[in-house]
């Protein structure tokens, strides 16, 4: 593994937080993509990345926040609010992405509507039936 040089830094309390967050984040990033590869049907696969990446990205972002706020030396020390915004956007959008992928899957590949449980009031699922 060939990576660019990086000066050594002392590991203080902030540092431990960064370190742990990075490890957790890295694990979950891997798990998400591994699940995407390993699971055997599309709906199951959808669970892996849309869940694991939230914590994966979250972990790394938390690491980054603590790193820039607590670990790095003065001229570089900032509070990277962008990271929070990234987390916010991802949490906001990930369910919609998943929702649309699921709907697309239902539309393109689900054998039939009858395989699904039906709403009791008979209105039907939006993907299949329109109100009008």
């Amino acid at each position, binding site marked *: *593994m*060939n*990576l*660019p040089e990086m000066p050594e830094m002392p590991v203080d309390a902030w540092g431990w937080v960064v370190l742990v967050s990075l490890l957790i984040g890295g694990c979950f990033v891997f798990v998400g993509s591994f699940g995407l590869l390993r699971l055997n049907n599309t709906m199951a696969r959808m669970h892996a990345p849309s869940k694991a990446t939230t914590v994966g990205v979250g972990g790394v972002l938390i690491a980054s926040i603590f790193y820039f706020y607590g670990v790095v030396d003065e001229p570089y020390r900032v509070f990277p609010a962008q990271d929070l*915004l990234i987390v916010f*956007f991802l949490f*906001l*959008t990930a*369910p*919609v992405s998943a*929702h*649309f992928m699921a*709907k697309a899957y239902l*539309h393109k590949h689900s054998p039939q509507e009858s395989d699904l449980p039906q709403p009791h009031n008979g209105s039907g699922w*939006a*993907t*299949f*039936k*329109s*109100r*009008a």
Partner: protein
Amino acid sequence: MNIALIVLLPLLGSILPALMIRSGRNACMASAAVVNFLALALLLTHSPAVFFFKTTPKISWPWLDSIGLNIEFWVDGLGLMFATMILGIGLLILIYARSYLSAADPMGNFYCYLLIFQAAMVGIVLSDNVILLMMFWELTSLSSFLLIGFWSHLPAGRQGARMALAVTGGGGLALLAGVLLLANVADTYRISEILTRRDLIQNSEWFPTILVLILLGCFTKSAQFPFHFWLPRAMAAPTPVSAYLHSATMVKAGIFLLARLWPVLHNDGMWFYCVASIGLVTMLIGAIIALFQDDLKGLLAYSTISHLGLITMLLGFATPVAVAAAVFHIINHATFKAALFMNAGIVDHEAGTRDLKRLGGLMWLMPVTAIIALIATFSMAGLPPFNGYLSKEMMLEEASHTKWMGSKQIIPTLVTIAAVFSVAYSFRYFFGVFAGRVRHDYPHHPHDSPAGLWWPPTLLIILVIAIGLRPDIMAESLVKIVTASVIQDAAPDIHLKLWHGWTPAVTMSGIAVGGGLILWLLASWLRTIWDKLPRPDAKVIFDAVVHGLTRGCQLISDSLHNGSQQRYLFLIIASVIAFAGWNFASYPWAHGDRPLQPITTPLVVGWILVVGSTLLVVINYRNRLYALIALGVVGLFSSLGFVYVSGIDLALTQISVEVVTIILMLLTLFFLPKYSQPESMSWVRWRDAGLAIVAGLGMGGMSWLMMTRPWSMESIQSYFLANAKSGGGGTNVVNVILVDFRGFDTFGEITVLGCAGLAIFAILEGLARGKLRQRLQDWEPDVARTADRHPILMVVVTRVMLPMAILVGMFIFFRGHNLPGGGFIAALVVSVALIMQYMASGFGWTANQVRFKYHGLIGGGVLIAAATGIGAMVADRPFLTSWHDHWHPPKFWEIDFGDIEVASAMAFDLGVFLTVIGAVMLALAQYSKLGIIAVDAEVNASPMDCDPLNNQPPVNRNHKH
């Protein structure tokens, strides 16, 4: 100056008849005649100078001196004679044509063309500048094209005009080359000077080329064998045209030029063998064919060919006396031939046909016409005491002692044979038309024509007789003066008279008359033989040649431009590679020794992803959605690549553009097939792949060479880095370059984008309205569609995202001058936020909520950017000069707001921002409108499919125009 006027009068006056036709046909004719007459009168004012004072009036005006083209005219003997002929006979023709043309013919056009033609002819004979002469030469070809094709409804007229133009125009271009060469060798463009440089020219290595080129021009124009075929075809013209063009003018232009250049071109070698031989052959062939023509004008046409051959042959003999004979015959031929053409016209006009087989006995019905014909034909046959006899005797005399390849007999024999035929066809003309019994099956009821038709030829006949009887008075001095000017030397001592004693010529003449009589009597018997002989038909050959040429060209052009973009692009790309490769190979190069950047694992992984997804696109390009997804991955990792090589602005831009592009492509793909059919044959694919690999190697190799070498010269970059903050007021150097150092590029760039928006609007609006709208409505989506259009979840999330995304856009906009960002990226962020809204809540509803007009945004943006630049101009600085300063607002409740940077570049960036939003949104909104038309959907008036709150169904409206 009035020499030029001789030419200019008919040229400019040609507009008169075209205008005067509104005042009636007589006024039209009169205006043309007046113009012509004035020109003639002007010309004749110069004759005393030429005749009595032996001077040559000249004028010279500069025109385009750098190539020796100047307005230079002169009147020497030769020019005077020809000009007089052209203008004199022209006047007669004008008058004759008034009676000849019918009420249906557009007479204004006719006289207009005729005067242009006349001007061109006069121009040729009076030019003292070879290039000027060439201009008039080509103008005769053009105007004669119009005249011959005057009755354009006749296929023969069109064909004849095209053929004449093709032959004479083509010859003219050869002549142009010859004349330019000649002038080049002679080192002058002035004819009068060229004529004095015979040795220079004849000793030049270019002499044979010059001679051949010039002869090509002359021979085509004067219908010499083997270019004679166009002349009879040109007889489809109205008879006044034939009478004019083929007696005194157009065909004589070739003769004129032969005579004009005779002093420098003639010699006993090449000139003699080319000119005299061709003339002889032409004379013979023309005479033979003439005998078998049934059409009067056809007969006259071939006879003209024959006589032109005769004159050419005389000029080819290259002796002064022969020249004198030629000059004399030019005059004589003009008189009797013009009269004969007019005569044929009268016959045609009165009897309704020109076919010899349907004519005969007209002598009794049209005595005046018959007399004219009698004299003119006898002159043509070379019978005394008419003028044709005199010049023919001179010709026979010259021919009798001219050797050809050492043989004394060849020329006299052939010339005599030609003369025999000449007599025969002349007899055939006269006796065939006028002698015999009166017939009762003429198409019309012939009687002598109105005076307008017969007195012009009568005038000519008087000349025929007068010259024939008293050549010493009527012609001798003229012939001598003209001959002198042709040979540019003292004229030979000749005496024109009817009887020179018992010379060989008289014997030959006698044989000719006797033989001609016999031949005429045997004509109908010979005709049966003639008809059985295989003869090439000029029309068929010409048609075949032209058709073949056209087909050949179509074959070449069609196979070259076969409409295949694939091949065009292949050839173009291959040319690029070949040319660049050739240049690379021709110059020295060396490897660079710049230290390389390390390769790290994430880089390798990124490389694998980029290359891998590229391969996915290439392999699966026919599955378009798949390819598009993979293309998105390529774009993503390209952006990361930009980040890695320190191009953060690039990355931001690339990411935003990528999203908009994907949306655009998806909108496109809705309408297009989702899969491409396999198309190219496999060898084509391999060929393309080969080219692609070569291109890839070339481009990759080039970039490798560039990256690995240190700068050998200092780049302009350091100036930008050094001056960005101090001069441009920003720390983001890339942005300062964009909005300040090279703001003009950006100004152009946003105009490009704005223009793209407008063009897209125009293209799509044309699809949404008009003829295509129906086709769009008839189209059905080729995919199954879900029931919901605007899912609740998306709508809600967008409501939260939109303001926040706009804020991010603002943030990126404001920081752009100092940190990565700027108007363009900000605009794309805002646009994407709006697009998100469109995707969530649909076109109809969203369009109602967006409170600005995208056209206005585009225009306003460009105008704001321009206004920023113009602001500088108002301050007397160049366009787009930036201004920046710090502003320290006053303290407010002890709060220090710090320095606020104010830069005009910000206003410019605002222009960028607005234009980009306008363009992107205009394009996408316009596009999405199409989808609604295409599926005949209703425009939604509510933001989501169903609001669970009040459980209302969605409100839609029909989308109509």
